[in-house]
């Protein structure tokens, strides 16, 4: 018996003690130095995505959520300057609908946005030329998507933010993040774009949204509506990652769920997009000049369709004037 305790039970207790200590430390670090809120306070690569944590409670009127197309093309400071709307852009590179849903839930913990724009480019993982749209998604593919390690790993990262913000140690110590862009990624780089032939040529064919992304999109829409927000789907100009087939699929979704859908790829002339000047790369992301045009249109759209108050003269929002001046400083 003594030997069993010494050789087996005692070591097992030590192992369990270690595992317990590990998880306690993991949780402590996840809620302190490596927390989501902390990521928004100090300059690091997550600051812009998490910048909504810096917005005072119950101030956000409009939220944009999506991938890099969104944070490149939707500019909250310009929306504030021209229309007085208080908004934020919540996006990260290759952000998925599942990640967007998790972030939206964080937003609603202390905000009550009136309107949410969901950027739909994140519904597709690959550029159009890499996809065989004739191939139907098998039921078993849906099964594998749910079991995919990416979904599970995202869940773990959500529970323990240290796995997302683990490399905060790489950033400059103590440099507080100045929330001047409100989630927008500023770039005035200009790369002329050569649009491929056949871009947005009309077709009846539809590139189906992968079921797991469709499910998460539906969950986002329902969550927003449950919390009193209106939802609008949109796609920003992106010749390298969008197509009419994708447009059709989103239209089907929008019709089925009674949603408006703004596809800027069909409005390029209307908002005067200039392929020579308005992109910062080979046609995937708008630069500041393109973002300004898109944001101007959105401002007009909101003012015509929604009763959202202009806060420019509201003293409680005076800090937005200051952050706009800081934002404009980047243009010099």
């Amino acid at each position, binding site marked *: 018996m003594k030997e069993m305790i010494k050789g087996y039970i005692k070591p*097992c207790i*030590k192992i369990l003690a270690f595992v317990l200590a590990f998880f306690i430390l993991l949780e402590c670090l996840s809620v302190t130095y490596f927390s989501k809120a902390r990521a928004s306070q100090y300059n690091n690569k997550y600051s812009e995505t998490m910048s909504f944590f810096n917005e005072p409670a119950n101030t956000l009127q409009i939220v944009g959520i999506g991938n890099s197309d969104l944070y490149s093309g939707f500019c909250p400071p310009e929306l504030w300057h021209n229309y007085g709307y208080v908004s934020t852009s919540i996006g990260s590179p290759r952000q998925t609908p599942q990640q967007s849903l998790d972030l939206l839930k964080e937003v609603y913990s202390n905000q009550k946005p009136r309107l949410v724009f969901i950027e739909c480019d994140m519904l597709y993982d690959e550029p159009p030329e890499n996809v065989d749209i004739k191939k139907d998604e098998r039921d078993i593919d849906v099964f594998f998507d749910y079991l995919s390690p990416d979904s599970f790993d995202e869940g773990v990262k959500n529970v323990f933010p240290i796995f997302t913000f*683990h490399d905060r140690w790489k950033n400059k110590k103590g440099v507080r993040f100045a929330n001047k862009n409100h989630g927008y990624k500023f770039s005035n780089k200009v790369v002329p774009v050569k649009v491929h032939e056949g871009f947005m040529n009309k077709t009846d064919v539809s590139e189906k949204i992968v079921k797991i992304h469709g499910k998460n999109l539906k969950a986002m829409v329902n969550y927003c509506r449950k919390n009193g927000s209106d939802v609008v789907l949109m796609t920003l100009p992106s010749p390298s990652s969008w197509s009419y087939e994708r447009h059709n699929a989103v239209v089907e979704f929008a019709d089925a769920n009674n949603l408006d859908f703004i596809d800027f790829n069909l409005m390029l002339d209307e908002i005067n997009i200039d392929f020579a000047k308005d992109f910062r790369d080979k046609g995937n992301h708008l630069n500041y000049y393109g973002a300004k045009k898109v944001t101007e249109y959105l401002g007009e759209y909101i003012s015509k369709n929604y009763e959202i108050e202009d806060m420019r003269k509201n003293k409680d929002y005076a800090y937005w004037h200051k952050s706009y001046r800081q934002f404009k400083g980047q243009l010099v």
Partner: protein
Amino acid sequence: MISYTSFAFFILYFGITFLLYTIAPCKAKWCVLLVGSYVFYFVSSKGHILPLIIATIAVWAIGLWLQRLNDIQKVKRKEAPKEERKSIKALYTKYRQWVLALGVAITFGILLVCKYSNFFIDTTNSILGLNINNVSIIQPLGISFYTLQAISYLTDIHHGKFEAEKNPLRVSLFLSFMLTIVEGPVARYDQLGRQFKELKAFDPQAFVSGAIRICWGLIKKVVIADRTAELVNAVFDNHENYSGLAVVIGILFYTLQLYCEFSGVMDVVCGLGEAMGIKMPENFNRPFFARSINEFWQRWHITLGAWLRDYIFYPISLSKPFMSLSKSARKKFDAYYSNLIPTAVALFFVWFGNGFWHGAGWKYITYGLYYYALMMLGLFLEPMFRRLCSALKINRESKGFHFFQMARTFVIVNFGMLIFRADDLKTAWEMLKSIFTDFSFSILRVGAKNGFGLDVKDYIVIVVGVLLVLIVSILGEKGINVRERILALPFIVKFILFMVMIYSVIIFGAYGEGYGVVDLIYANF
């Protein structure tokens, strides 16, 4: 594919399997491993499980057939008069060879079709000027690894090394084991399959020892290898923008990436096996301390080298035609060269096989034959080199000479890595040329500005990581087992050290936003 370094693998697939394995009675543990392995394979390969099942059934059936022939031969020889025993043995050996050939044809045939079809089509098109379309075949996960294991299983039964397994599920576990199927090691049935029949109860000491090894593997893979991937991809994927020293840096970093990733993953799988009380075959033994290419390949991907030696080199070199070749060579050349010539011919097949196994492309075959050519050059020139060293009074056993040999081997290996990593042979040649035609140190200024995608802190982590690996390796070469020393430390010291190791991986790991997704390199072979 589910990476061995993902949360899903550790918590879901391995985690649940391990928990059930621990509580299951010893006799049923292998069933837990089988179910766990198949669930892992099924999800990892997105349902493309049919080739594995077909190969398993074929291997099991052919194994039993070979065993049956072995048994009949034994009985017949026992009953037959003395003068007939030799002819009975020869007859049944011939039958078994045909059955073995059938087994190899089926398993190897599946591999050829799934992995090499388009290679053969493209080669035929370019030689004959045809325009045959490529076929769309999904390469089954792990096929390169379980095919080798299947062939070794059948060949060992043929040679009477052990009896065929009657239970198809046990054969299935041997071929589909979740810790070997993605990146190896290439296990033998008597190494692994037998252990599955003698699985033991949970051993806390083995668990802790395995856990330390897992952490060490994760440090190599997630902290070092995945971080260096940024620079390697920057240089090799945009090679037209880089030349000279930048290419050298790219090659060195790729060697580092490949070693840390492959050996790191091997540490993880061996550690996981050890935690379950299963001893996995070793695949690395500090390869950069090798003093020759031959020694390098005895220390790098050890199980592949051993497989090629046992199932290609020995069968060829000990075959009748080669024994005759050796006899003829002895009449014309001295003892050294008369042994070398048949060895050289047999080794050609080994190195061709090595390259061919790695990938369906001429660059991989060239990679294998590159080592063959250098090895042959070394072997043929060895007597001359020995005389030269003697004439110049160079002590070949001195530390200085050993160091020279290690450095020479290191350079040779790095040039091999250039062939291995470049998109194709043409690119490899252009990159190689650029090292000499466009060499300058200016890239250190230009590259330092954008850091090849890495910042100063990344380089510090890489340097610290490499120093750690070097220290542990040097201690290993001196016969000091660092893990055993750690296990002998007091509990509180072990506790803190282990916590530091795990959190080093979590905090300094190159994963998540801003880091590219780095697939397991050898899982693609």
